[in-house]
């Protein structure tokens, strides 16, 4: 049983994936309140009765463009309390940046492959529901890889970059420590260094979006 039973609205145009996602969520004890196939329908059901979390595909009918993202932005503007988890087929941080532009917290951007890692996926969902930010590791890797050689990131040590990447995924220090097999104190020290080098205030749940927003600005 999950920490909290979430009411969820699912937007995914592929029947196959909708069923798959619904059964995973159902199994985890969440309530899939509605499952819709396009952006307009998503907005309609969310407006009628807001769920805890919206899970949406990027591409949906009718245009098969970024309808899902646009619906997400609209929801965020109208009902900022709803967590939004965007599932994407692409490692494209351009979508992520448009998602993060207007918002902080309660946002997730995952590759669809990640859903198959059921436990991790459900943990990400919980984090989004709690107002946290989750970004797919693959996307983060790309973001960080780009700016290896320029700007203030050049000042970071490889270890600090690793920590930053994990932070950007929305992990807390304990989880980072476990991943890197170091003590939490060591992670705290790295995080402090990173914030100092990047001249960022130490925030709590906003640190991912702060980092990502910073990274976007460097583009």
């Amino acid at each position, binding site marked *: 049983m999950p920490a909290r039973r979430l009411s969820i609205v699912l937007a995914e145009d592929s029947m196959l994936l909708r069923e798959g996602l619904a059964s995973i969520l159902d199994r985890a004890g969440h309530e899939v309140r509605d499952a819709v196939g396009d952006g307009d329908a998503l907005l309609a059901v969310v407006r009628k009765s807001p769920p805890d979390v919206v899970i949406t595909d990027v591409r949906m009918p009718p245009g098969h463009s970024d309808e899902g993202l646009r619906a997400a932005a609209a929801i965020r503007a109208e009902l900022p309390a709803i967590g939004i988890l965007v599932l994407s087929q692409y490692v*494209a941080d351009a979508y992520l940046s448009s998602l993060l532009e207007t918002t902080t917290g309660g946002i997730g951007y995952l590759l669809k492959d990640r859903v198959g890692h059921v436990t991790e996926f459900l943990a990400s969902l919980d984090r989004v529901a709690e107002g946290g930010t989750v970004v797919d590791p693959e996307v983060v890797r790309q973001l960080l890889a780009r700016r290896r050689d320029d700007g203030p990131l050049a000042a970071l040590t490889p270890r600090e970059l690793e920590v930053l990447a994990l932070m950007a995924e929305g992990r807390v220090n304990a989880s980072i420590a476990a991943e890197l097999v170091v003590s939490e104190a060591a992670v705290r020290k790295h995080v402090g260094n990173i914030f100092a080098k990047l001249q960022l205030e130490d925030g709590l749940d906003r640190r991912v979006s702060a980092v990502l927003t910073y990274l976007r600005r460097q583009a």
Partner: protein
Amino acid sequence: MQRPESAWAALTMRRYLVSSWPWRSYAYLLSSVPVGVLTIAVLLVSVGVSAVLSPIVVGVLLLTLFPLYGVVIGSVERWRARLVLPSGIASPHAKLPPTMTRRERLKFRRREQASLRSLGYGVLLGTFVWIFSAAFAGMSAAVLVLTVLAPMIATDDEMGMGPWILDTTGEGFLFLFVFGPCFYVVSSYLLGVLAAAEASLAKALLGPREEELRRNVAELRRSRLDLVDAFETERARIERHLHDGVQQRLVGLTMTLGLAELDLPEGESKRLVVKAHGEAEAALADLREAVRGIHPRVLVDLGLEAAVREVADRMPLPVAVQVSLPDRLPAPIEAAAYFFVSETLGNVAKHAGATNCHVQAWVNRDRLVVTVTDDGQGGADPAQGTGLTGLVTRLDALGGTLDLSSPPGGPTRLRMECPCRLDD
């Protein structure tokens, strides 16, 4: 002495009478006889055959081939006109790409206005021009020959020139020296004017018309753009198919495998399911990469800048991106620019030995300019990049160009330029 550009200009030369021009005029006017006779004969026979065959559809079909006669007449006449128009007459026909089949070419030519015009000229030539030319040039030639031969003829025979009867050699010479030059002067100018007039008529009907040239070029470009379009549409279709079909199924598979992992107890079967899960994910990653190469979604959704940044991100070397575009460009242009960048960056990563790379894109007076510069070893050979060849074809259809500068030792700089709009 400067060569006159036309028969009209030649007529104004002071040395016209001692130049080759009078003789060229003769040659031009007289040579219209065989051409004119042959033309009218072929046309009449064809019309006759068509008329006879018209009850069966073949006759009507034959008529539709008439413009092709025009093409032949036009090319013969343009060649013949060089006699009095040294610079010749430019062909009014559109230049066709070498990839067109013979059938397509004939079809195109048949519908060209220029072919019909040439046919019209052929009819004029066959019914009127050659007769008129032959009458004047023939008569003039005959008189000239007689005049020259007058002393000889008058020796043996008597020769009547109007009221004047020549019957001695002396009279013949007198006639030649008195009348000859006058006649030569008058006839040369007269025939020069005639030849010039005929050549002008030929030029007017057989030469290119400005708006026609422009239209032909535009038409050709349109057809090539259609090709590029069809190509793009097909790519998008394949991409959608992979995305909506294969990719979704693979994702579904990873979900099912993920669920199965939860249920299975530790052991061999769980190990196999985990392995299968990993393989499905690897397949998904490969597919994602392939789909992106076919038709990048980001390009369609967010435009050139975002798409170029995505490519740059995936490169193993640092790539600085500077893109400043006013707004979205037409899809084929965005696609051409995107594939230019992705192909070029791929080459840089593979061959250049570069440590830094710089992509710039901007708009300069309605032309999109994209450059990719690297600090590698240089000496890049455009003939080696097969991917670039396809790009050149694409750019060509869009009216764009590709330039490479790669001195040994570097830096290498590739630059593409392309109009921002498709219809100019």
